């Protein structure tokens, strides 16, 4: 009988990439892979620690599995495992707590566990890039990891401490990985990492890598996952015109107040950010810019907050992921005074969310009457759903198999919910 392994992933796309790669490997090893802990022999929780809320969610997933009768092998991995390893090992003495550096060795760990040769995970051969290309994943688009770690040391961020120093994957391995996932049938590839704009492999920059990827002589769509706006060259903007590169960037802003950006030790100014957005919209007026905003950073005045709130509309942002600032020990911001009371953070966060929804609706309305190419990733009894080249969800009231790319005429926009979908019909 097949062994069953469940995965639950929290946080960023890099975690999703790593889970997908592990899930695919377990499939090839003969395991049945599911996305929950029910009746599984192994349950893997790939955690996140970027905010206190992420820690809570990660713990919740582990506790939920245990209180719902999971008695199989339990593996806790990801950034929370790096950040709170001792605490987790104490609280869950029967769990294997596997840090990011050893995450890719989870298959060896599981095999060793079932062969009753329990090997401590830190003795297995791991590596931050030792993931084979994933054939069967939880996603329609294939994520390809190009980089890990971060040397930016933003004052609020714990990630450099848990993901470690920036390290770039050799370009040949990335190109091979992409060709292989295209062979598996993927039509869209997302390049991912902790801080991908800082990609540098023996002098090869991010733009140079991007150029090589786009030159792969195959028909596919390429997306860039979350990216920091601090090191783009002219070549990067030139490449944005390439038909394979999708017109969407999740360009992390964090604050539109110049003084808060300085306190965050971000490596750009709001003025520079605006210039980048203008350049992208000059290339394509509909270019989708989505972002992260932190509210309630220590010392954030009403004026600072209003600057961020105003930016949401001014930049016509397609989506804003709003975070309330959460103190992470061992960061510079944790030593800052002038912290903000939680109710005020909540109030500001709600105001940003409301402004962001308004901006999102205004942005998406522009697509009504336009033809889009949609990659279908969801199918149910009522509709098929997927994402357009601009990374906007589109619903079609027709049955279309997953992983199909099709031309869709957009005729409307849903009126309810926080993520209203465009409504479309298959175009002739």
């Amino acid at each position: 009988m097949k062994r069953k392994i469940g995965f639950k992933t929290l946080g960023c796309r890099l975690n999703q990439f790593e889970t997908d790669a592990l899930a695919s490997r377990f499939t090839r090893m003969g395991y049945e892979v599911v996305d929950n802990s029910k009746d599984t022999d192994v349950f893997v929780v790939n955690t996140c620690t970027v905010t206190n809320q992420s820690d809570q969610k990660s713990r919740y997933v582990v506790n939920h599995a245990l209180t719902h009768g999971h008695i199989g092998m339990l593996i806790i991995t990801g950034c929370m495992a790096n950040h709170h390893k001792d605490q987790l090992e104490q609280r869950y003495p029967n769990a294997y707590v596997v840090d990011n550096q050893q995450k890719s060795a989870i298959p060896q760990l599981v095999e060793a566990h079932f062969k009753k040769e329990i090997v401590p995970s830190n003795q297995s051969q791991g590596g931050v890039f030792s993931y084979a290309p994933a054939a069967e994943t939880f996603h329609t688009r294939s994520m390809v990891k190009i980089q890990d770690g971060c040397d930016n040391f933003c004052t609020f961020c714990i990630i450099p401490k848990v993901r470690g120093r920036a390290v770039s994957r050799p370009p040949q391995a990335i190109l091979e990985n992409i060709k292989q996932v295209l062979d598996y049938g993927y039509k869209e590839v997302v390049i991912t990492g902790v801080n991908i704009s800082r990609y540098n492999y023996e002098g090869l920059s991010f733009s140079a890598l991007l150029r090589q990827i786009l030159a792969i002589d195959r028909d596919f769509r390429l997306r860039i996952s979350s990216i920091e706006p601090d090191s783009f060259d002219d070549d990067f903007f030139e490449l944005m015109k390439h038909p394979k590169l999708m017109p969407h960037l999740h360009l992390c802003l964090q604050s539109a107040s110049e003084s808060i950006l300085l306190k965050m030790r971000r490596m750009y100014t709001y003025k520079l950010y605006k210039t980048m957005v203008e350049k992208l919209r000059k290339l394509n007026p509909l270019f989708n810019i989505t972002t992260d905003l932190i509210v309630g950073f220590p010392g954030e005045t009403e004026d600072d907050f209003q600057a961020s709130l105003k930016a949401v509309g001014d930049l016509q942002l397609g989506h804003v992921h709003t975070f309330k600032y959460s103190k992470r020990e061992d960061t510079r911001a944790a030593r800052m005074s002038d912290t903000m009371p939680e109710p005020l953070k909540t109030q500001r966060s709600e105001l940003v969310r409301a402004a962001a929804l308004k901006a999102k609706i205004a942005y998406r309305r522009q697509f009504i009457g336009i033809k889009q190419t949609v990659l279908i990733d969801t199918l149910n009894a009522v509709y098929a759903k997927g994402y357009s080249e601009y990374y906007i969800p589109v619903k079609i009231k027709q049955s279309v198999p997953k992983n199909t790319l099709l031309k869709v005429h957009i005729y409307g926009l849903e009126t309810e919910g926080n993520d209203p979908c465009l409504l479309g019909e298959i175009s002739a």
Partner: protein
Amino acid sequence: MQKEVPVANKIKTDLHEILQIRHLTDSTFVLRIERKGLTFQAGQHVCVGPPNGIHTREYSIYSAEQDDYLEILVKEVENGLVSPSLKKLKSGGFVVVEEPVGYFTINKALPKNQKYVFIASGTGISPFHSFVLSTPGLNYTLLHGVRHGDEAYDADAYEAGRYVLCTSRDDSGNYKGRVTQYLKKHPFGTDVHYYLCGNCNMIHDVYDILEEQGVSTDNIHAEVYF
């Protein structure tokens, strides 16, 4: 498809012996420690802390890339968790050092005769000391804002005429007033690369002045001290 890749990329931490402590003022000193093969680019910083504590603080490297030791410039912070402990250490003792990181570095692709203006407040002069010592022949002007003239840390390390001491509380410097006032009165032009290091307020104000003077943000580089 297994590749030869780094197994881990954790930040490396090591104990480094203190070679010398050189006091520049009552509260500011240069800590010289063994290098132990650490490589860095001028402008990068290291986290340093006492050997028996759990806390470290970020310090820009003060010494040159080619020196066979590392130096940091430390100002004692009243009731601080790290700097008062560092001040008490002696030669032969040890400090904890994390490997150098950071992007506040000179772009080596720029022409050799590129003009630079370095603007520092207080111990924010540290990376510029490293820039100047690491790259002989650098075409620079260094504006150093301090309160009193005795904070002109190692001023003789800089070529005559390239170092402008701006003192806000006495008139012992080359200019009586803040670096921001000096910059307003003496614009350096738009084809210059400006490097700013020091407290948030100084950097914020200098950005505004440079913008008014027509300098592109591509030519402004900042490292904030807290």
